[in-house]
């Protein structure tokens, strides 16, 4: 594959942005795992907290999506 140093930088940057997706996975796992740990200790309170769970998951996941967005921008818009 041919290319210049700039496009190499683009691909490297896009690949590095992929690390952010993995870090977001840590965050999402942390939220879900802690919810489950709490829910198993106090199952009666679990149902009332599902909305909070999803809000937390959404916030953690949004940052992973941002890194995916950065990868896409580097690949196709830079």
């Amino acid at each position, binding site marked *: *594959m*041919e*290319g210049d140093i700039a*496009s190499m930088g*683009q*691909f490297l940057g896009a690949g590095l942005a992929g690390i952010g997706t993995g870090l977001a996975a840590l965050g999402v796992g942390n939220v879900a795992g802690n919810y489950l740990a709490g829910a198993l200790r106090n199952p009666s309170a679990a149902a009332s907290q599902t*909305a909070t769970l*999803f*809000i937390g*998951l*959404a916030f953690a*996941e*949004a940052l992973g*999506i*941002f890194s*995916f*967005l950065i990868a*896409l921008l580097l*690949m*196709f818009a830079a």
Partner: protein
Amino acid sequence: MASHTATETTEAVTHGADGAVMSADAVGAGDAAVAHGADAAHDAGGLVFHPLDQFIVRPIFGDGGIFHPSMPVPPIHWYTPTNVTLWLALAVLCVVLLFVVGSRGRATIPSRVQSVGELFYGFTHKMVEDVCGKEGLKYFPYVMTLFVFILFANFLGLIPMSFATTSHIAVTAVLGFGVFFGVTILGFVLNGPSFLKLFWMSEAPLFLRPIIAIIELISYFVRPVSHSVRLAGNITAGHAVMKVFAAFAGLAIVSPLSVVAITAIYGLEVLVAGIQAYVFAILTCVYLKDALHPAH
């Protein structure tokens, strides 16, 4: 003069070809014959990865429309009916079929379609009441509209050969910024200048409050961006992953594995389609709660 123009044209052509190689073919094709552009590569055999081609906006009619995907995309004006128009209209049609036509009878003992509609209604009603409280129920129709529209747009995008409208930031940004402007205006109308207390943490130590106010202000203005990018990014990523595995199915050794993987990811995407619609609606409720009760 003439030679100058000719040089410029050649340069432009070379640059254009370079761009096509970079953007479309670096993902996996790597074949010089395919380097003409994203569209020409559809005919080439072997492993061809074009996970993002499914999101190209094409007119419904004419050469280069959705029935001629190998042709280059013709110019699109604001009045051109495209595949986005088609699938957004179908999403609206599904909502109308479920809630207007299906629940037409308003029977005490509901029909099957009506009970599905009532299920959605009750679910959203409880969500708005739980997050915003009783006074938030005034804005329940708005949340319900957003939730049901996004839900149907997401699910229609999962039909094979369809178009995922919510994968486009243009679609979700309209929804997200609509919520942002609506909530901000509502907050100032209901509370007047005391809406700004949202940024002034009265529990925090006094010397920290200006710093927290700046952070809160930034996070407030990032809200519409994250609100819309979350939905579009999730749908884009999911569909692109499915297309990547679909490209692996061209290789005989891994094709059974890739078919299994597509099935599994499709199941996950059905889940994501529902969850993202729910998350969009519940975040709308959370933002609405801030407008109704700005003081912490």
